[in-house]
């Protein structure tokens, strides 16, 4: 356990401080039920999760309720988080999206089978750093899009676009991020077998 954290700590110089920081907080929640770490994650992400839910059409009351569910799920699923396959913000986004659909449509959203991931199979630090670099590039690329296109992308993720409208927006620069995640998956499969 300690070894894992020490290795994480070393990566701060290579990785953006904030992302390494959030990854470490999630690990601490998973391994030590760290309420202080949770409070920190909550202060940063809860207002954004709630904003996402409001943009997605929830009213204040529902958004608050749903946001609390999302953050509670984060606590319970912290041990399943894999920083070589998703940034912390992305992982929280997927929990929020799923909970939103559960509540708004009143059925349990079908989710892909999770891949088993235990402390004995650690994510490769090089993969974690590589994913972080790619997700930073992606965020920059989205920021630099013409405002109209950027707005369309945002609306797609607020559930505001139909499927055929989305089909027109798939040309995002995702090639390298996908191959990075593919490599991380290969390593995970290898560790599992």
């Amino acid at each position: 356990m300690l070894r894992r954290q020490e290795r994480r700590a070393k990566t701060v110089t290579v990785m953006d401080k904030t992302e390494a920081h959030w990854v470490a907080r999630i690990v601490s929640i998973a391994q030590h039920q760290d309420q202080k770490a949770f409070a920190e994650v909550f202060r940063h992400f809860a207002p954004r999760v709630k904003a996402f839910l409001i943009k997605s059409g929830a009213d204040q009351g529902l958004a608050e309720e749903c946001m609390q569910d999302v953050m509670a799920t984060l606590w319970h699923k912290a041990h399943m988080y894999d920083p070589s396959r998703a940034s912390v913000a992305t992982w929280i986004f997927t929990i929020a999206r799923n909970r939103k659909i559960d509540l708004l449509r009143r059925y349990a959203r079908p989710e892909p089978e999770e891949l088993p991931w235990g402390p004995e199979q650690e994510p490769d630090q090089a993969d974690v750093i590589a994913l972080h670099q790619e997700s930073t590039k992606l965020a920059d690329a989205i920021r630099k899009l013409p405002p109209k296109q950027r707005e369309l992308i945002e609306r797609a993720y607020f559930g505001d676009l139909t499927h055929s409208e989305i089909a027109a927006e798939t040309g995002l620069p995702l090639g390298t991020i996908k191959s990075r995640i593919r490599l991380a998956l290969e390593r995970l499969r290898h560790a599992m077998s």
Partner: protein
Amino acid sequence: MTAIRHHIPDDLLMGYAAGALPQAFDLVVATHVSLSDDARARLAGFEEVGGAVLSELEECDIGEDSLEQTLAKIAGMAPTPKIKPSNGVFPKPLREIVGGDEDAVKWKSLGMGAKQAVLCSEDGVTARLLYIPAGQAMPQHGHNGMEMTLVLKGAFRDEDGVYARGDIEVANQEVDHQPVAEPGEDCICLIATDAKLRFQGLLPRIAQPFIGI
């Protein structure tokens, strides 16, 4: 993990990532992703876009005692059980809606040994399982909208080749084909159809080349 030869198009993965698909399509995507690491990685890419959108959002006010209420919720929730890799024919999202694996399906006969089971249906969008005995043709099934077919067991063949476990075929209303189950093993497919909506322009658009970073 089998080698998948027929992959899912990006627009469906992005639709799943954004939470914009109807339940039946979500079910097929989630089941396919469970069987294909290629699809899982591509989906994760589209989900990173969601993470970027979330990060850029302006913070909104939350309740004063939000954190305390959330901690109370946490205390009242059952812990998430450890994940066990499944060994059945059906991946987890499909098992959950069926209520078990292959042997739990409540089949209805279509004649000639073929069977089907409707899993969910809303606004003309339906997901069902189809069972075709080895060597038999699938029953003709007209569809006005989009149709996704995911193979779970056995294989079928049509003019585009052989589709085996994990392979996915996405057809629109213009595709007129009658797949035939390969000899040797009975074939089970998960199919989502959209009778009402027409996704016009879908195929030309997804063929657009991706911009590299």
